[in-house]
């Protein structure tokens, strides 16, 4: 199938509802055929952004371009954009086939029914064409909603938390299917989700949104490896963040001092390179070792934080999650792979070790609690 996707460009989009600013001066560029995820907690403005791309909402300021065309003033039904709604929004009075053919019929495509049947083949539901939506399972409805959108070969396809209502197992399966279908049709996908794992497994590019703004855009592995803000560091996986002071700088490399200890930090991995900064390290990049015994892998380029005490142990099978209190620094989370049968128990005295090249540096005024999901 020929690729029909086009670039999507948002230029300084702001959306206000009364005094409330849902989206704040947001700009982004999604190249054609990309699988792009907008990731953020509920209320961050990601769904409003999606609705503005669809034309269901109009921006208070800013422009929307699809390809080279400015569509800001174009109405929803005139945009070559289709949406897979969170609740699917299948028309309950129409059969599955009629649902899928709906858009093509409005565009007066002559072989609408044939194309709709082909789209149902694509999602492997051709045998249910004559059913009504209420007679389908959640996963099947989801696939109908996808077929109903994809069949129109839109320039941009929007997915609004499309997997939110499915159970975990079905969700994994649908993630793979969505990815396959996107490869097949080559449409530009914009996928809105609050599930960071979903965004990371499916998208080529992820934009993390918070309070109406984009915090950071990049491929999932880059975002995870080098978050630029505390929000991204905490929302995308877990991070240990602590304040540290830059004591020395020799161009490529910084020396940090914190709670009586020191560590190195690559200048290229730091947002701020002078004064007090917030340093961060991922839990699986820390090795906890019995006090006074360096781990076998440690060598030059490793930092050591002594004086930790294990305060909690959660065993998850593949790995064990430790909470380790360090005097003057607070709690550290450490993921240890269960390669050996011996682990720590509560109260054990440990030293924390990490390779300095894994450390990242954030701005000194970063809120270390930002993006931690409240339970």
């Amino acid at each position, binding site marked *: 199938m020929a690729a029909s996707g086009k670039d999507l460009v948002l230029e300084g989009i702001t959306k206000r509802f009364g005094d409330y600013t849902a989206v704040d001066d947001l700009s982004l560029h999604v190249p054609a055929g990309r699988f792009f995820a907008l990731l953020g907690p509920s209320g961050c403005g990601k769904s409003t952004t999606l609705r503005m791309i669809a034309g269901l909402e109009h921006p208070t*300021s800013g422009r929307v371009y699809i390809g080279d065309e400015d569509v800001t003033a174009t109405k929803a039904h005139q945009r070559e954009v289709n949406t897979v709604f969170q609740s699917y929004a299948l028309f309950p009075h129409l059969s599955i086939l009629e649902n899928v053919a709906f858009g093509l019929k409005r565009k007066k495509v002559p072989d609408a029914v044939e194309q709709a049947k082909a789209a149902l083949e694509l999602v492997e539901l051709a045998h249910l064409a004559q059913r009504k939506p209420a007679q389908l399972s959640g996963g099947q409805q989801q696939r109908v909603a996808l077929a109903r959108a994809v069949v129109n070969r839109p320039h941009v396809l929007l997915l609004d938390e499309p997997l939110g209502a499915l159970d975990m197992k079905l969700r994994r399966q649908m993630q793979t299917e969505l990815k396959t279908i996107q490869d097949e049709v080559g449409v530009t996908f914009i996928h809105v989700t609050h599930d960071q794992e979903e965004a990371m497994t499916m998208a080529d590019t992820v934009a993390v949104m918070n309070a109406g703004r984009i915090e950071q855009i990049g491929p999932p592995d880059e975002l995870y490896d080098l978050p630029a803000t505390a929000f991204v560091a905490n929302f995308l996986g877990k991070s240990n963040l602590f304040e540290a002071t830059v004591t020395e700088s020799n161009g490529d490399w910084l020396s940090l001092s914190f709670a009586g200890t020191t560590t190195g930090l690559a200048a290229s991995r730091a947002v701020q390179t002078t004064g007090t900064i917030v340093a961060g390290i991922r839990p699986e990049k820390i090795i906890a070792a019995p006090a006074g015994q360096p781990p076998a892998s440690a060598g030059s380029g490793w930092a050591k934080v002594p004086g930790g005490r294990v305060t909690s142990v959660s065993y998850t099978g593949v790995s064990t999650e430790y909470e380790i209190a360090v005097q003057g620094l607070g709690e550290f989370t450490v993921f240890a792979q269960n390669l050996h049968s011996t682990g720590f128990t509560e109260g054990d005295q440990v030293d924390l070790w990490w390779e300095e090249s894994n450390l990242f540096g954030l701005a000194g005024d970063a809120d270390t609690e930002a993006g931690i999901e409240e339970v």
Partner: protein
Amino acid sequence: MSTAVQTSAEEKRAWRLRGRMGMLLVLPGFLFIVVFFAIPVFSMLSMSLYTQPEGAATGVFEPGLNFGTYSAMMSTYWDTFIRSFGFALIATVAALIIGYPMAYLVAVRLRGRPLLQGLLLVVIIAPFFSSFILRVQSWRFILADEGFVVSTLETLSILPEGTRLTATPFAVVAGMTYLYLPLMTLPIYANLERMDSRLIEAGGDLYASGSQTFMRVTLPLSMPGIMAGTLLTFIPAAGDYVNAVMLGNNVNTTMVGQVIDSRFFQSVDYPGAAALSSVLMVIILIVVMAYVRRFGTKEIV
């Protein structure tokens, strides 16, 4: 950085469009209600203040500000007002007691048996189609002195020999209860029918007994339906007079509607009739507002 952004042209256009469409949809009906309800209510209010010029023929009045009509009417008919509202209240409570179990049976107990539900619903609705007057009339015969009800009750010694049921306040209230029963039952049914059966089941788990579940879960949740049903019964009952005319007497069953009707068509006293209906309208409006505020939900039906 976002400076103070005004609304964009696109937003304005979208709002204007939606606003205009909403207005266009509402406007014809709105105008109809203005012309055939709002303005008539004002003309009724102004007619209640009309005066009759000295020596003018019957039915000739001229615009004026004669508030005396109100005091004259109220001093004559205050007891009729009290009776009307009293009868309407009793009929409403009776209809609630009779109608709720019907609604509950059909909506909750018979859930999952659509055919039986449908049949019983028809039985509730269909009396509307066999004329109103005929139904009132048939009560006159059912309750008649030599009728089945009276003779049975007398045989069972529930009623003393020679008691009359027709031409009594009882007959009028019974007729009103009967007449407005569907208006009570249907909103309650609609409310109970929408109620999530899991809530009722969860109540069953928590409180174990059926009656406690009912009192603590089902009944409070069905308040919007009860509100709607009681209003739909009370309002027409307070203005009704067909039951009073056909099932009552001339002594202690006269209702306000009857007086308004006879002031208009027999005494040809338009200001008096208009004053009485204005008072009736205002009292009902106050009662309804107090009731909605006290038990209020936004949902009326």
